[in-house]
C-alpha cells in the first residue's frame, strides 16, 4: 500500500535482506531475542535473580520507559542526532550498543531527573519515590505507588506519540527538519499524554491515599459504569490502545485508513480507527474472561475483581502484540504474496490463535522460567512486564541493529 508519502521514516527506507532462508531466519532471530530477554529478566527483574526489581511496579516502570524512549528515538526523532548515512554504514553491533546505551541513559534521566527530582518534588509528590518516602510513607509502597504513576505516562505516550508519524505522517510538521520536527511532535504528543494522564489516572490517586485527596484530584468518574474506583479500568483500554496502534502499523499495514489519501483526514481517521480497535479489544477481552471465569463481582479481589479483569485485557492485548511483532520482525510479516486483504486475514488468524496459545503457555511456564507465582491473578504480577521487555529486545534488535546477524542492510538502489 505505497501511497504518496508526506513523510518517510528512516526505518521505512532502509533495505534489509535475509542472510538466512526463512523460516530459519525467523526461528534463529526469535531464539536470539528471547535469550537476551531472559538474560535481562534475570539481571533486573526475576525475584530469584540479581536486582529483583519486579515488585512489580518498580521494574515495570523501567520497562515502560525503555519502550517509549525507544519509540521516541526511532519514530519521533528518526534517530536524530545520528544521520541516515551513519545509520546505514555503521556496524549493527556498534549501533546497537550506542543506541541501546542511549536508551538506558535517557530512561534513567527521565525517571530520576524529570519525575523524581523535578515534577515529583515541585508538583505532585506521588510522582516521586524519594518525595513519598520523605512524607513518611513505607519505603516499599512509596516506590510502588510512584512507579505506577510514572509508568502510566509512558503507557499513554506509547499510544499517543506513534500515532503522529504512523497515522498523520507528522502532519502539519512534516516539512520540518530534525530535530525541530522531533521536538515539536514529542512536545505536542507529551502534552496530550499529560492531559490523558490527568483525566484517566490522576483520579486513581484521589482514592489511593487515606484520606481521599478530594480537593487535589477528581473522584474516579468511571465508577458508575465500570463498577470499580480503580484506575485499572483505564489502564486496561489504554494498554489495548498501545497494542492496537502497533498492530495497525505492522500486521494490518495501516489498513483501512491508509485508503484515505489526504492529510489531516487520514490522520484523524487513523486516530479514531485505532481508538475503535482498542475499545473493541477491550470489551471483547472482558467478555471472554467473564465467559471462562464467571462474571466479575463488585468489591471482589483477584480473578473475580472487575478492576483486575480490566487490567487483564491489557495483558492479553500485549501478548497479542508480541505475537504480531514476532511475525512482523522475524517472519517478514508473512504472508506477503497474496492480495493485501488475504494477507491481513491470514496474519490476523495466526495472531488470534497464537494469542490463546501464548496466554495458556505463559501461565504454564512462567513460574519456572520467570520466577513468578502460579495462578492467573496475583496481586504482585503483571505479565505485561516480561512481555513488553521481550518486545523491547525485539525493537533493539530490529530497529537499532537491523536484525543483525540474520539480516543485513543493502545499499539503496
Amino acid at each position, binding site marked *: 500500500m505505497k501511497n504518496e508519502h508526506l513523510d518517510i521514516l528512516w526505518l521505512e527506507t532502509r533495505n534489509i535482506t535475509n542472510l538466512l532462508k526463512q523460516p530459519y531466519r525467523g526461528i534463529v532471530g526469535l531464539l536470539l531475542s528471547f535469550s537476551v530477554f531472559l538474560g535481562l529478566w534475570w539481571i533486573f527483574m526475576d*525475584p*530469584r535473580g540479581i536486582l*529483583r526489581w*519486579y*515488585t*512489580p511496579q518498580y521494574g515495570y516502570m523501567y520497562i515502560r520507559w525503555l519502550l517509549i524512549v525507544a519509540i521516541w528515538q526511532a519514530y519521533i526523532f528518526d534517530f536524530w542526532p545520528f544521520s541516515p548515512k551513519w545509520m546505514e554504514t555503521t556496524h549493527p553491533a556498534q549501533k546497537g550498543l550506542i543506541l541501546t546505551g542511549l536508551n538506558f541513559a535517557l530512561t534513567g534521566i527521565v525517571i530520576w531527573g524529570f519525575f523524581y527530582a523535578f515534577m515529583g518534588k515541585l508538583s505532585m509528590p506521588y510522582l516521586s519515590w524519594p518525595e513519598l518516602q520523605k512524607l513518611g510513607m*513505607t*519505603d*516499599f*509502597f512509596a*516506590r510502588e505507588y510512584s512507579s505506577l504513576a510514572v509508568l502510566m505516562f509512558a503507557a499513554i505516550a506509547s499510544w499517543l506519540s506513534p500515532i503522529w508519524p504512523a497515522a498523520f505522517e507528522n502532519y502539519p510538521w512534516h516539512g520540518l527538519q530534525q530535530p525541530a520536527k522531533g521536538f515539536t511532535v514529542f512536545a505536542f504528543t507529551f502534552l496530550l499524554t499529560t492531559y490523558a494522564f490527568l483525566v484517566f489516572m490522576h483520579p*486513581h490517586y484521589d*482514592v*489511593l*491515599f*487515606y484520606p481521599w485527596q478530594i480537593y487535589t484530584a477528581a473522584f*474516579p468518574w468511571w465508577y458508575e459504569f465500570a*463498577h*470499580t*474506583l*480503580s*484506575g*485499572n479500568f483505564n489502564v486496561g483500554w489504554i494498554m489495548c490502545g498501545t497494542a492496537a496502534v502497533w498492530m495497525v502499523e505492522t500486521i494490518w499495514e495501516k489498513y483501512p485508513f491508509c485508503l484515505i489519501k489526504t492529510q489531516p483526514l487520514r490522520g484523524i481517521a487513523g486516530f479514531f480507527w485505532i481508538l475503535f480497535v482498542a475499545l*473493541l479489544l477491550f*470489551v*471483547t477481552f*472482558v*467478555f471472554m474472561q*467473564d*465467559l471462562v471465569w464467571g*462474571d466479575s*463481582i*463488585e*468489591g*471482589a*479481589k*483477584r480473578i*473475580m*475483581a*472487575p*478492576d*483486575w479483569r480490566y487490567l487483564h485485557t491489557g495483558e492479553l492485548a500485549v501478548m497479542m502484540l508480541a505475537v504480531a511483532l514476532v511475525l512482523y520482525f522475524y517472519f517478514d510479516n508473512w504472508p506477503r504474496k497474496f*492480495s*493485501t*486483504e*488475504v494477507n*491481513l*486475514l491470514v496474519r*490476523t488468524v495466526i495472531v488470534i490463535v497464537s494469542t490463546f496459545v501464548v496466554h495458556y503457555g505463559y501461565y504454564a511456564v512462567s513460574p519456572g522460567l520467570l*520466577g*513468578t*507465582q*502460579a*495462578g*492467573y*491473578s*496475583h*496481586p*504482585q*504480577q503483571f505479565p505485561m512486564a516480561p512481555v513488553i521487555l521481550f518486545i523491547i529486545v525485539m525493537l533493539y534488535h530490529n530497529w537499532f541493529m537491523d536484525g543483525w546477524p540474520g539480516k543485513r542492510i543493502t545499499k539503496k538502489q
Partner: protein
Amino acid sequence: MGNDVTRRSFIKGMAVGTVAGYFASAGLSSTVFKDKMLVVNEPPKVDIGMVKSLKVKVISETSWFSNKVLLDDLKKAGGLLVNQYEIPWTSEGVKEGFQGNNAGGFSTLIDVELMDGSKKKILLDTGWNPVWMEKRYREEGIDKMLANNEIDCFVSSHEHFDHYWGIEALTKYNTKLPIYVPKGFYQDGFDLLHGKAFPKAKVKNDYPHIGKLTVLDSSKPNMIYPGVALLTFDVPIITRVFGEQAFVFNVKDKGIVLVTGCCHMGIITYMEYVKHHIAGGDKIYGVQGGLHISPFEDWDPQYDDLVLALHRYGIEKLGPNHCTGYVTAEKMLAAGLPLIKGTAKNGSKRDIYLGNGDELKFA
C-alpha cells in the same frame, strides 16, 4: 482473464468480510448482546448440616509487631514474589517486637457445639514465632488442651509464615493431632511439619508431626463435622504460597458464619461462593478473622470497592482482625458497617477490632 479478476475480487472481499465479521460479532456479543451470550451455570447447593452454637477466641492476631521492619525485610529480599523460605526475616533488635523479635503469629480457637450436644475444639493456625505462640498458648490454656487431647484437630488456613511456622509450639504438646491443610502447600511446608529446619528464614520444628495429615482440595465443600465445612480456594498468594481454606458454619436460628485465617481469596468472593454453593448461603450472619485488605496499612482503590460492596451482604456481626488492617477498619466504621470492637490487650495495638484474647459468640 475476466473470471480470474472476479474470482480474486470475491476472495479479497471474503477476506475483508471474515475479519470484519469476526471482530464485529465479537464486539456486539461483548456489549449489546452480552446478557444473552454470557452463560451462567447455577450449581446445585450443598447442605452442610447445622451446629447449635459457635464461639471464636482470638489467641493471637498480632502476626508481626512492626510493619516497617517486615516491609523492609520484604523489599530487601526482592519483593512480594520471593519465596518466604528464602527471606532472612529480622528476629533481633526490633524495638516493638517480642523479645526483640518482629515475629508474632495468628491463631484462633474455635469452640463449636454440634446439634447432638457434643462439643468440638478446633485450632485454626498456629502463628509464626514459637516462643510468642507458646506464651499465648499458656496464657489461654491451649498448651494444656493440646496435651490433654481436648483439641480435636488443627486446621492450617494456608502456608504463610505467620500462620504456620509456629507449628513447633503446637507439636511440642501433641505430635498426633489430626491436621488439615489446603491443597497448594509446597513440599517445604510438609518438610517443616516433619521436622526440617530452614536456617535462612529462621524456622524449624523440633517435634515432627506423626498424626494424620489430610490435604483438602477445592473440588467441593469439605465437611469435617455436621454443620462445619472447610472451603479451599486455588488462589495465588504473596511470598510463594498457593491455596487457602476457610470455615463455613451453619448456626441454627442465626445463619452462616465464616471464619477465616487471611481470606486471600477475598471476603466478597468467599461470600459469593457460599451464597451460590451452600444451602442457606443467602443469609450470612457473621464473619470473623483476617480479611487481608490493608495488612501493611497500604491502600488500593479496589479495597474501597470492597468496603462499599460489603453492605450488600447484610452481615450482622463483622469481626475482622489481623491482616484486615486498621485503615480498612476505620473505613468500615465510617461506612456504617457492624464492626465488633476489641479490648486491645495482650499485645494487640488498637481496640478498633478484635484483638488477642477477645472472644466472639455466634449463638
